[in-house]
Structures are given as C-alpha cells and as structure tokens.
C-alpha cells in the first residue's frame, strides 16, 4: 500500500470538511464538518506513524488517540454552546450570531 493513498484520502476528507464549515449555517452541521476535519487529521497521524520503522511506529497511533479525546471534549462543549445559542435566540443559524462583528 502506498503512503499517499491514505494521505490523499485524508486530504479529500479535510477539504470536504472545510467546505462544510464554510457553506453550512446550522450550528450542529458545522460541528459535524469539524469532526470530518479532525478525522482527516487522524488518518494522517496513523498513516504517517505506520510509515515509520521500529519503536516510533506507535507514535502516530498514540497521537490519534489524543486527537479523538480532544475531539470528544470539543463536541461536548461545542454542543453546549449551540444549545445556549438556541435557548437565547430560538435558532441555531450561525449567520445571525454576529454580535462581535465590527
């Protein structure tokens, strides 16, 4: 197997996630797109780790596990924030949340 087939899959998922973050305005869907981006990073971590020899081969897997943990924490806090936005404005439309826009 080539290194590149995994890295290109990661790149494709990353770009789809970027499109989702930019094009969606529903807060929950934006969080889903961020999950796509984090998963693309995980593929890169594991693939590049498998590309190493000897003891270093495990590093990629360990960092992928850390990324999964941080992603879980991020979704928890992110959904709590979306819920708060919904409670205050009766909508999760992120285009309406422009209080900090100059």
């Amino acid at each position: 197997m080539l290194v590149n087939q995994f890295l290109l899959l990661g790149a494709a998922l990353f770009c789809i996630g970027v499109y989702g973050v930019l094009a969606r305005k529903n807060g929950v869907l934006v969080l889903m797109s961020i999950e796509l981006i984090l998963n693309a990073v995980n593929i890169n971590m594991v693939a590049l780790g498998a590309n190493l020899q000897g003891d270093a081969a495990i590093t990629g897997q360990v960092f992928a596990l850390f990324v999964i943990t941080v992603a879980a924490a991020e979704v928890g806090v992110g959904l709590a924030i979306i819920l708060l936005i919904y409670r205050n404005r009766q909508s999760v439309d992120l285009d309406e949340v422009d209080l900090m826009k100059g």
Partner: protein
Amino acid sequence: MEFLPENIAFGILAASAVLAALRVVTTPNVVHAALYLVIVLSSIGASFLLLAAEFVAIVQVLVYVGAIVVLFLFGVMLTRAKMGDDPDLDNPRKGPAALTALFLAGILAYALVDFFQDDKLPSLKGTSEAAITASRGTGAVGDSIFSTYLVPFEVVSVLLLAALVGAIVLARRD
C-alpha cells in the same frame, strides 16, 4: 497499482467515506447528515485496521460512532431541528466555499504527490504476528501511553474533566 486485496478494500472504504462525507455537507436533512457521518466514521475506522492500528480502530468506533454521533443526535433533538428536509441549512456563499475547498484540495494533492510520490508503507509481510503485536499492537500502545506519553495523557484527562464541567455549566438552566 496492483489489485491486492488490501488495495481493493481500501478503494471501497475510501469511496464510501468520501461519498458519505459529501452527503454530510450537502444533505438538506440534519438527521441524515448525522447518519451519513456514521458511515464516514466507520469507514475511517476500518481503514485504520488496514494500517494495523486495531486499538485506534476500536476506539474510533466506540467513541465516535457510539458517543459523538449520539451526542449529535441529542443536539439535533434539543435544538428542535426540522424533521424532514430543511432548505435553510446552507448559507448563500456556497460558491466561494466550494472554490476554497477545491483550491485547498489542489494544493494538498500537489504537495503530497510531489513529496511522497510512490513511497510504499513498510510491508509487514514476513514479520511474525508476535513481532507485529509487540511493536504496534494494543499492548505497545498502552505501554507507550503510560510511559513516554504519561504527562500528555494526564493533561488530556484534566481537559476532559474541564470540558465535562464546562458543558454542564453552559447547558444548565438558571
């Protein structure tokens, strides 16, 4: 590229992941987006198996498919998302967004193909099963987390606690 079993498996997994990911970002139904996300995450978990990373694959299914997607479905439910198709999920700037994503894809693909070209992953063929397990199996991951990466592991556990407390503080009603 030869048609080895692992390449065929990878092709199927990659195609299902990319197609389902495209549906996640384009479907007009929020619940369907969450279900398509399940397909993406399980395909990625299976492709971890192709890389001999079985613990990451299991954790991917447990944490992502088991917990995060359920969390998303709760989020969909609590924000009273419209059941059925909702045409108002995208903002009007889809064109520039697609342009940005395609531009980024082009740059990334060019850089990756230019740098890695036809580099192959080190083949595990001929290595004994015990040697693979010792160098990159679940036991090796555990050893590594609880020796080399002990401090980051503890920091991540504090981060999870902080996120838990933060989510409760944000979401409680008073």
